[in-house]
């Protein structure tokens, strides 16, 4: 099967340099676009391919681009790659950034051409020190070869690309929080509308795309939207970099057709559960997704099917809960993360998440009461979508509400047995 995203990645070895990358077919899509396509045509190709945002939101990428105003009087537009991967359980963008930096750069040049952006930023989290080094080297190679800068390949198109390493805050992964951070401010979210496509970075039209999303673009241009759709097993186009962490025999990441089932990823690629533990549940797309259990193992992992099953594809990197790990502790750890990372802007998130963390801590330590369960359910309702300024708190409620749905007995046991049954 074809693995466009990872075909150049050689584990344990440095990534391809520019010459090797070109020999492997790299930067062909840039030449093709600049010679053969108008910007709007590029957007249409990407839209037709049904590439959906790989950062978790799953919005059609080409459609997102189409909202950028394309009349000639707007001179400054921005393209930003969101490489601030911090969602617990997620490790896919690191693999692409460290493994094939030129793929991201190529994807960004094509995407910038489609929206006619003249400046781009790669917003990478500060902890990805190796990836930042690798990207800096690749950027300098791309500039020297004339793929970046003024008048790229004598086409008249100019695109300058900078790297910004962030200094640590989950909210920088939120599109508008990222823009505020790039502007040198606190990473609090902005109200939408206006959407960044119209008024984004420094008030100019801006597109923020996830790293994995951008890495798909060169291949879509080279091979066409039909090829991309055919890589998938469902209607959502392309391949997906899936991952598994937790107590499985072979945790890791694999590029597979979009729509591969949970069971296939867990059993065939991750080797199934470690000896001595059994599968209890899984968060299919990182910490901000709802738990799925045994009955869902044959669900196809794409945007539509996971939503039907009551969860979300999110980042596509799974966190597995086994039967010897305490579900209350598991959820408590995540809610502690969300409470800490709340930016503090809006009341329900700033006040509600620490409250939820405290209740879970009390239940886990054996001092909880049954009323605490009602309080948790109350929060899952009032911190839900629409009630907060951004999606952090609603995301935090997804594992909690599904844990209360599927593992209520375990929560109650902590209360009636006045302690954690798993602690020995």
């Amino acid at each position, binding site marked *: 099967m074809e693995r466009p995203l990872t075909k150049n990645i050689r584990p344990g070895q440095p990534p391809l340099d520019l010459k090797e990358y070109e020999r492997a077919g790299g930067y062909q899509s840039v030449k093709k676009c600049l010679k053969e396509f108008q910007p709007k045509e590029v957007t249409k190709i990407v839209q037709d391919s049904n590439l959906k945002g790989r950062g978790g939101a799953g919005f059609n990428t080409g459609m997102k681009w189409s909202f950028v105003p394309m009349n000639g009087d707007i001179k400054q537009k921005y393209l930003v790659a969101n490489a601030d991967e911090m969602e617990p359980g997620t490790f896919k963008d690191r693999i692409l950034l460290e493994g094939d930096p030129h793929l991201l750069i190529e994807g960004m040049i094509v995407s910038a051409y489609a929206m006619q952006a003249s400046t781009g930023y790669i917003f990478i989290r500060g902890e990805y020190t190796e990836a930042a080094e690798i990207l800096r080297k690749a950027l300098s190679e791309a500039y020297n070869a004339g793929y970046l800068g003024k008048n790229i390949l004598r086409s008249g198109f100019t695109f300058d690309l900078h790297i*910004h390493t962030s200094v640590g805050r989950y909210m920088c992964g939120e599109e508008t929080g990222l823009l505020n951070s790039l502007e040198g401010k606190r990473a609090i979210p902005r109200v939408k509308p206006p959407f960044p496509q119209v008024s984004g970075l420094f008030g100019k039209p801006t597109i923020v795309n996830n790293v994995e999303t951008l890495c798909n673009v060169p291949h879509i241009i080279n091979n066409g939207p039909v090829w991309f759709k055919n890589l998938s097993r469902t209607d959502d186009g392309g391949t997906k970099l899936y991952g598994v*962490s937790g107590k499985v025999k072979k945790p890791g990441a694999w590029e597979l057709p979009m729509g591969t089932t949970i069971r296939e990823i867990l059993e065939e690629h991750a080797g199934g559960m470690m000896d001595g533990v059994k599968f209890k549940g899984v968060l299919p797309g990182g910490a901000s997704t709802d738990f799925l259990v045994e009955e869902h193992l044959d669900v196809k992992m794409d945007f539509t099917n996971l939503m039907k099953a009551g969860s979300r594809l999110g980042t596509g990197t799974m*966190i597995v809960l086994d039967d010897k790990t305490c579900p209350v502790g598991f959820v408590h750890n995540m809610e502690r993360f969300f409470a800490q990372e709340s930016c503090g802007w809006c009341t329900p998130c700033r006040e509600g998440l620490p409250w939820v963390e405290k209740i879970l801590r009390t239940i886990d330590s054996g001092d909880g009461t049954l009323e605490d369960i009602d309080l948790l359910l109350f929060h899952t309702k009032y911190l839900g979508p629409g009630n907060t300024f951004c999606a952090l708190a609603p995301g935090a409620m997804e594992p909690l509400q599904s844990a209360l749905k599927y593992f209520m007995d375990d929560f109650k046991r902590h209360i009636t047995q006045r302690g954690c049954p798993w602690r020995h």
Partner: protein
Amino acid sequence: MLSDQEKTEIEEHLKEYPYKQAACIEALKVVQKHRRWVSDEGVKDIAEILEMTPHEVDSVATFYNLIYRKPVGKHIILLCDSVSCWVMGYEKILDHFKNKLGISFGQTTSDGRFTLLPVPCLGTCDHAPALMIDNDLHRDLKTETLDNILEKYK
């Protein structure tokens, strides 16, 4: 007072943005790189070159996990305490640090060699538990080999 080197580095970053204030985070990183942490004086120095108020700079400095507004040790250990590392046993690694180095999260060893801080998901969950010391990532951690890792950081 910003050193000449700090000034030069900040001015390089100013070229990447259309407004001075946008380089605030870069400036904080530069000062922290040279001084190991950002003191009130560091905040004032940055405010001056970026034409912001010290309060504006501080509101940014105190927001981010990796900008230190208190003195830190020679080496910073960032131990991931997110859910995959929790499942795979980061608490055992923390216990080892408590016993061996005598410090827990937020503390510095008495000889000033190490500061231990928690960090959210390092993005290497298939090799959990994981930590960073300064710019180096260490993963698939086992308590038996931790001391060998620490040895490298004098």
